[in-house]
């Protein structure tokens, strides 16, 4: 038959053009924000040096970096529990939230009886519930994990439900005509269709899990970057607060980046 709508461009030319464009895009997308940050930091540094503002109000970036280096052992020792508890809270919320999402999508009874309550529950300002967890679970990692789980849980549920229902009804009809089982429809159709939703939910959930753990550390005051921030803040060690914040940023970046990377790898496999 005829070849319709094929754009004629030699393959070699197309490949080199695509590569060139891709390199340009990546450079722009990575270099531009980094350079912007550099410029802002330089302005900050210059402002602190010129104005002579007291470091307890606003320390210079160079001082923060120095404090970070000097206190590296303390910071790393406290970053580890924060990271672990965040990951734990995230993984638990992904599993439990995903399971609840599947249940809500597949059982009309569960949906009708639970979903309105889930939505209602989500309206509670979750940070306000944190002290309850301390009452129930004590001041150890259990309650910090529970707070993280509680905060990070809902976006997963919502995104799972909307993702699993995002299937083209015509595709479901096709599956029915092929005598596909519910199992096959779930794994071969609904799950792939829901992936963009799931990853969006997981990215939101990961940032919320960090917030949960930090709130937990504020309240339990045992260890972790949140504890360092609170403790240093109470002693007016602004430089240390900022150094801990910077480490927290790095931890968040790595955790969020892991989810984003997983998304890119998996979505690549699913043709996006």
């Amino acid at each position, binding site marked *: *038959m005829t070849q319709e709508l094929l754009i004629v461009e030699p393959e070699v030319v197309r490949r080199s053009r695509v590569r060139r464009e891709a390199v340009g895009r990546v450079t722009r997308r990575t270099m531009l924000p980094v350079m912007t940050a550099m410029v802002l930091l330089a302005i900050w540094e210059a402002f602190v040096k010129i104005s002579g503002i007291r470091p307890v109000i606003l320390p210079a970036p160079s001082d923060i970096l120095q404090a970070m280096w000097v206190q590296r052992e303390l910071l790393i020792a406290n970053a580890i529990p924060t990271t672990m508890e965040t990951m734990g809270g995230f993984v638990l919320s992904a599993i439990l939230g995903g399971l609840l999402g599947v249940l809500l999508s597949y059982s009309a009874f569960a949906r009708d009886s639970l979903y309105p309550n889930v939505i209602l529950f989500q309206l509670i300002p979750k940070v306000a519930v944190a002290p309850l967890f301390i009452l129930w679970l004590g001041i150890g990692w259990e309650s910090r994990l529970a707070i993280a789980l509680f905060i990070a849980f809902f976006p997963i549920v919502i995104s799972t439900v909307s993702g699993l229902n995002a299937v083209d009804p015509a595709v479901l009809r096709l599956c029915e*005509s092929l*005598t596909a089982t519910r199992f096959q429809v779930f794994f*071969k159709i609904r799950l792939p269709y829901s992936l963009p939703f799931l990853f969006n939910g997981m990215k939101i959930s990961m940032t919320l899990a960090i917030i949960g753990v930090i709130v937990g550390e504020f309240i339990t005051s045992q260890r972790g970057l949140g504890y360092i921030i609170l403790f240093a803040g109470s002693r007016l060690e602004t430089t240390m607060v900022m150094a801990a914040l910077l480490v927290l940023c790095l931890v968040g970046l790595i955790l969020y980046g892991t989810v984003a990377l997983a998304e890119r790898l998996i979505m690549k496999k699913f043709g996006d």
Partner: protein
Amino acid sequence: MLAVTPQSSSEVFVRLTKVGKSFQSDSGTLEVLRNVSIDVADRQFISILGPSGCGKSTLLMMMAGLEPVSSGLIEIAGQPVRTARRDVGVIFQDPTLLPWKTALENVLFPIEIYGLPFDKYRVRAEALLELVGLGDAGQRRPRQLSGGMRQRVAICRALIHEPKLLLMDEPFSALDAITRDELNVTLLDIWERHHQTAFFVTHSIREAVFLSDRVVVLGRRPGQVVMDVTIPFARPRDLNVGETVEFNQICGDLRKAIAESHAAVSRSNGSARKSQNL
């Protein structure tokens, strides 16, 4: 009344006996099909022609086992249809390809669902794609294909498991006229090679006459058989057959039959409907 001409030469593969369909809605019962009886001979290409809303797509969905009948009986190969069957291939109005799969993987999707050996059918899938002119597009994804190309992939997917009955629900209605002509030729080409029983639903008179051995006209809702004609043209056919006097004569007769079915409904519904059915 019912003008049913059973094919005496070969045996019946699909038998519709007094099939009726009604939908319940808030405003009452909507009768879509009434007393439709059609016998389809083995390896016959039959088109169901009718205005939109006459229930022809519903009839096809019931044959595919995707919709229950309200009354009557549908039999395929002597067995009553209750659910979808694996010896049937369906081509829907939309290609409904899975966006993350390549054209080849989409063609092999039924094999994946049936749990049949992939390697055995891969060759067949490639041959089918070749046949519809997509031999070098097997590794492309649906969004890299035009609408016509996607529907070609859907045709291959419906044929991959060598069905005995091919059900087509206005498969080309979303395409432009030129692409549609091309796909009609492609479809005939494939069908003349494989020659399974084919049941084609359309609202295009010329398309129905060009493709079919036999055309059945369903009247306006509730759909009933108002005409049943045998198309005499020899196969293989090409688009030139559409230029002949006989072809246009048949098209004229069919158009008249559809118009009369409208008029009959208008009369029975009172004069209010008459003007809008002109």
